């Protein structure tokens, strides 16, 4: 974790504060026990989930499994898919990929220990009793519905040995090898996982390898492969189901998406080239292609088909796969849970992870030529091939040195690419956020011990405030989307009426001026870099002022006299701040679009890259606002008492 921890700066601690807030609200009774109780509830939640899913999904999962195990030639699922989707072949690819990755996943989850037994033990220890219950449930459920013989024995056994699990894993691998395309894909997996083999050998292995042997290769998958997978798959964006996570480097398998969001927020000083615009980013299939070129030139269709996968199909395939596993044994149930929780963390997490990786790599290696060469070239000598984590670390060090060097060399020169976070700091955004955090922390310390003594009605309000402030509504964008132009007058009226409602005297002058300046068109003959710099500056200024507004609002709320009806008043305040956040986030994104459009008119080669960055930063501003809103929670809650 050291990697991400040290860099998260202010927001890490901010987030921690938030989490403790949430915990204290969700389980008022246990606040004093703090983390332990949180973990316990977490565990019990997991338990519930497991048993729930066991109940719900067994009947669905099992029939598919029977179909596959009993009649391997009966292309039950492909048929069904071909009815649903037009591109049958593509779908099989998708499926195969996810199968492949899923297998990798099965093996990679127990990073702490290398064998599946360990997971199982850990799992068993954690949910010892629950496991027993579940198993009995399984034994009861399954036979009543289906023919017991057709099920693998693993279902009946509580703790299957590693070999048995390997057998389980083979079931999907047979599906993988049904078509030639899928075989190619699974072989691609082998190629990757065995970088030691020369090109010729690989070809041979490819042709001769029997279909049921991916296991040895898979079990040998090491972190290198996983990292590579991370690049490829997250660049693909859509491939949620294949979530190879570099957990051994502590990038956080189970990191909640928020903390990732905020870590990315603190990352904004770098210019993130998004995957969509594709500039300088190696296409996922490029990496694959280079492997394939060396390995075997006979399978070009794979690379062409992979990128076409639509997200929806990918998801469907992934779920099918998961259900297959779900029928097999408890351990796969565990995997399934992990898998579905990964789904829920969603595309964003993966996308950001990928962006981050690419970004760090790119800093020292524009175009990623060197990285690509190092990663993809089997002739490079596989023994001393560096793993991606090492490359990332080196890239970071180099870029740090380079950036400090260039800054000190050029001083305050204009040629330095502007960074959002630096501008945000310059406009005192960070320090307002820090001050707000101090207030929030103090309120939290004061409020937390009192919550348990509250009557349940007020306790509900406290919870409601926390919920209101931790959830902002992206859809509000759509309401305003029909008017793409910023209507400053309407905005000002809207905001001031909001604050009047909760009798807060907040001056909107500075904020409105900042918006006005940002919207004023003055596209003289300036370079795209200059326009870009001004766009970032305008976004940073507006965001800083909004954070300042929140900070001032918090101060005034803390000083204000008690409302006549504390519960109603506090909820109204929370609602107001939530809607103000939504409104302002929408306006900031409009401001971002305005700048992004402006930059397109500048005749300069870089504009695509810059305008994408502006869109990215504008959306990133939202997370700053959301952070500020979350810090408001204890402050608003303190009003209930």
């Amino acid at each position, binding site marked *: 974790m050291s990697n991400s921890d040290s*860099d998260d700066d202010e927001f890490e601690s901010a987030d921690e504060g938030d989490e403790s807030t949430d915990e204290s609200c969700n389980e008022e009774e246990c606040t004093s026990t703090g983390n332990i109780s949180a973990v316990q509830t977490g565990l019990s939640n997991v338990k519930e989930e497991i048993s729930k899913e066991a109940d719900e999904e067994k009947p669905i999962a099992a029939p598919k499994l029977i179909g596959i195990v009993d009649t391997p030639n009966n292309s039950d699922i492909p048929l069904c898919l071909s009815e649903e989707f037009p591109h049958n072949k593509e779908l099989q690819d998708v499926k195969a990929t996810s199968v492949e990755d899923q297998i990798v996943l099965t093996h990679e989850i127990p990073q702490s220990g290398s064998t599946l037994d360990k997971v199982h033990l850990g799992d068993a220890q954690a949910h010892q009793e629950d496991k027993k219950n579940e198993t009995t449930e399984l034994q009861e459920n399954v036979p009543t519905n289906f023919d017991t013989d057709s099920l693998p024995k693993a279902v009946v056994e509580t703790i299957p040995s590693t070999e048995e699990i390997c057998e389980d894993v083979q079931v999907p691998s047979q599906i993988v090898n049904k078509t030639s395309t899928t075989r190619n894909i699974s072989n691609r997996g082998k190629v990757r996982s065995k970088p030691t083999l020369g090109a010729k050998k690989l070809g041979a292995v490819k042709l001769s390898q029997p279909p049921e042997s991916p296991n040895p290769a898979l079990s040998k998958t090491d972190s290198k492969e996983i990292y590579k997978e991370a690049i490829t798959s997250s660049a693909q964006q859509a491939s949620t189901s294949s979530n190879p996570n570099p957990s051994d480097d502590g990038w956080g398998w189970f990191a909640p998406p928020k903390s990732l969001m905020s*870590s*990315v927020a603190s990352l904004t000083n770098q210019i993130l080239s998004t995957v969509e615009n594709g500039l300088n980013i190696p296409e996922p299939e490029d990496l694959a292609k280079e492997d394939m070129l060396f390995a075997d030139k006979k399978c070009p269709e794979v690379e062409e088909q992979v990128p076409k996968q639509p997200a929806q199909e990918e998801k469907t395939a992934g779920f099918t796969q998961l259900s297959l596993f779900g029928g097999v044994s408890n351990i796969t149930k565990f995997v399934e849970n992990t898998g579905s929780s990964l789904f829920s963390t969603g595309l964003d997490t993966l996308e950001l992870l990928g962006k*981050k990786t690419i970004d760090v790599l790119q800093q020292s290696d524009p175009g990623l030529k060197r990285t690509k060469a190092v990663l993809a070239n089997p002739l490079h000598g596989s023994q001393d091939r560096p793993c991606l984590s090492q490359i990332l670390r080196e890239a970071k060090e180099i870029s*740090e040195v380079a950036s400090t060097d260039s800054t000190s060399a050029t001083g305050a020169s*204009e040629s330095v690419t502007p*960074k959002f976070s630096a501008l945000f700091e310059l406009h005192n955004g960070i320090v307002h956020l820090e001050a707000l955090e*101090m207030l929030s922390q103090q309120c939290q310390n004061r409020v937390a011990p009192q919550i348990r003594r509250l009557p349940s009605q007020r306790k509900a309000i406290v919870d409601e405030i926390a919920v209101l402030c931790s959830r902002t509504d992206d859809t509000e964008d759509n309401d305003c989307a029909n008017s793409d132009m910023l209507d400053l007058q309407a905005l000002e009226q809207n905001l001031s009426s909001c604050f009047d409602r909760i009798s807060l005297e907040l001056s909107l002058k500075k904020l409105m001026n900042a918006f006005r300046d940002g919207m004023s068109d003055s596209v003289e003959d300036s370079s795209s870099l200059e326009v870009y710099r001004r766009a970032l500056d305008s976004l940073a200024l507006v965001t800083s002022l909004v954070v300042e507004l929140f*900070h001032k609002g918090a101060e*005034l709320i803390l000083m204000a006299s008690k409302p006549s009806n504390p519960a109603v008043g506090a909820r109204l305040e929370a609602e107001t701040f939530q809607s103000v956040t939504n409104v302002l986030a929408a306006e900031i994104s409009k401001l971002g679009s305005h700048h992004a459009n402006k930059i397109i008119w500048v005749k300069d080669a870089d504009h695509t890259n810059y305008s994408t960055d502006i869109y990215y930063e504008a959306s990133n501003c939202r997370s700053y606002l959301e952070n500020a809103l979350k810090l408001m929670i204890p402050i608003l809650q303190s009003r209930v008492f």
Partner: protein
Amino acid sequence: MVEPIFDYQFRIIIIGNSTVGKSSLLKYFTDGRFAEVSDPTVGVDFFARLLQVEDGTRIKLQLWDTAGQERFRSITKSYFRNSVGVLLVYDICCRKSFENVPVWMNEAKSHIEPHRAVFILVGCKLDLKDQREVSSEEAARFANFNEMPFVETSAKTGENVEEAFRIVGQEIYNRVQLGEYSIHDGWDGVKAGYRRAGRDYGLVEAEAARTTCC
């Protein structure tokens, strides 16, 4: 407007009765001009300026301008923690503001504990000498007794404004050099700035370095 390079950031808090001229002092120090009209501060405002100490080290002073009004007292208390320097400000034309200085000082000390901050006594509105209610000698005695430096300033003429902040910055820097203050997590009084290549701080960099990427 690229982020200027600095080696350290010191967080300094400015306290004192309302209308003694805290914000004006800061505005002069950061903008170099006197603001004729000044709205009362709400809660806390922020200013920042770079300062070069004797050995050429560049210091960013992050200045927390607190509201002097009584009604904000409970809020401003929250901000003392994490400060490494304190400007105790009074109005030389207002006896009451000087008499309140010990109150401010004790409040600051108790909230900054367990850390020890650098204090300085600053008399404002030196340009209004003829309306003086607090003599220099009396203020100097108080400062002496409490072992802190003392200056009288005018945000209108700019007299001694620079001096007041330079004294605080230098003293904090000296203490950093002596190892009395260290950069560590959970305390924002002193932070390391953006690194300059080839410089050795004599401090633990792993904790201090604020990197620009993740």
